[in-house]
């Protein structure tokens, strides 16, 4: 139902220690946005693609289509950055429109391109995490990072019930469709809205039964659960540290230069 979620359970890197994967992706992400360099971002993009597609076994076509998810935002925002409307043409390009120019400087075009590469590299870090780590594992890492317990418990329940409600919602939409509920825009909007209220009512009904079910297993206001453990491997840790050190060195060197 949710492509990323489905794929991550099949990833060959799924059982690599979640803490390792989390640290790796977060540090790499950090260096990407701090350094904003073509070289570093390009390298990160390549390494992450290799890891996720090559090692993790996520099909390349799926990976590319997932990478395209934020493309609308990326294109529009970057255009907004590199396109100016001014009376004076800038040094990058300039299209005269009446007495004005649609124009941009070389520096800003370069800046925009760098931003695109940086953002894509950053997205690849996010995907490395989410395509190879299950949400349950990510939550247990957050638990280790002292995320408040109530928030974690809510996350645990929300994650589970996203799928239950999603199934109900799509079934309701199908059943509306089967009764011509998508005849025109007006009908579609009304159908969608009514599905929304029906769904919420159903969700609230479920919440009561769920609580009873938890109580009947001795729930006392605190969700305590165990995870399966996948211990970190020293060799992997060493590899991650050296990789991140290289990124750090490059970032510092560029900052100084």
């Amino acid at each position: 139902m949710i492509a990323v979620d489905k794929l991550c359970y099949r990833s060959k890197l799924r059982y690599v220690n979640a803490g390792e994967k989390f640290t790796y992706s977060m540090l790499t992400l950090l260096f990407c946005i701090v350094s904003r360099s073509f070289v570093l971002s390009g390298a990160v993009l390549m390494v992450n693609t290799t890891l996720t597609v090559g090692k993790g076994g996520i099909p390349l076509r799926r990976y590319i289509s997932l990478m395209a998810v934020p493309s609308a935002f990326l294109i529009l925002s970057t255009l907004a950055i590199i396109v100016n409307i001014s009376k004076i043409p800038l040094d990058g390009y300039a299209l005269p429109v009446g007495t004005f120019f649609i124009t941009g400087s070389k520096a800003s075009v370069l800046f925009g391109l760098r931003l695109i590469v940086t953002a894509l590299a950053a997205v690849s870090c996010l995907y490395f995490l989410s395509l190879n780590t299950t949400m349950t594992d990510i939550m247990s890492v957050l638990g280790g990072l002292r995320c408040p317990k109530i928030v974690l418990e809510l996350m645990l329940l929300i994650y589970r019930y996203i799928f239950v409600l999603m199934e109900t919602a799509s079934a309701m939409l199908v059943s509306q469709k089967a009764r011509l509920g998508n005849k025109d825009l007006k009908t579609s909007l009304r159908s969608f809205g009514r599905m929304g209220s029906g769904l919420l009512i159903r969700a609230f009904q479920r919440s009561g039964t769920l609580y009873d079910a938890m109580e009947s297993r001795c729930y006392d206001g605190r969700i305590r659960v165990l995870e399966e453990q996948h211990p970190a491997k020293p060799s992997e840790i060493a590899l991650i540290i050296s990789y991140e050190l290289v990124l750090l060195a490059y970032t510092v060197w560029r900052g100084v230069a």
Partner: protein
Amino acid sequence: MAESEQVSEDIIIEAREVRYSYEEGGQPSLDGVSLKIERGKKVAFMGANGSGKSTFFLCCNGIYRPDSGTVLVAGQPIDYSRKGLMAVRRSVGLVFQDPDNQLFSASVYQEISFGPMNLGIPEDEVRREIERVMDYLEITPFRERPAHALSGGQKKQVTIADVLVMHPDVIILDEPASALDAKHTKLMNQIVDKLAKEGITILMATHDIDYALEWADEIVLMHEGKVLLQADPVTVCESREALAMTNQEEPAVLKLFRRLVERGVLEEGLRPPVSFGQLERYIAEGR
């Protein structure tokens, strides 16, 4: 040539090599389904969960569009334009297994009016139709209650009303008796019989082989996205290999009949009984 055309006029639903996967390149949910359903028949669809019954049903009224192959309704390939779909969905009504996934309105009345209102039928007529269908399906006693406060069986009645009010040629029921109590199972069976008598073609998914044997004109046995067997109930229920493949038990009545024949209590060559009443006569008379 002329003959085949004549026959096809009586075929209300036909599938030709229908293939469908939920994910591109994923495991096919329907893996080349071909079958023909004659108008006015009562057809039971059997097979394990995940064998493709529900997916096939959703192809029958154009909710899913096959990756390849064709579905024909009343001899015409489904036209997937907006207008074409409207026509198909009007003619093929779908009742879902879990009423909670079908009912979304606050009131029973509102719920039933949804379909006909979308058909653009004048309000007066819709009102009349709703009254008629509520009466017909014995919904009137609880019509004032909010939909979420109904019992499972009552919800089921409403889901059928939802569809029936649109005057479909075909009604597809996905496990209508699952999770119902004895009273509502009986009522549901009565309703289904009533519909069948009016000449509506009924496709029903069920796990209850005893019921299918007695009720159906034909059983379609599905297995891993394919039609394993389509035949009259007795033939299907006697194909023990096919049943074993789909993890289906032999119907109790046939099993007892077979054992009695094996033991020599009943003669060989008798027509297999579809109900215990029939078996009882055999035993009483064959004594």
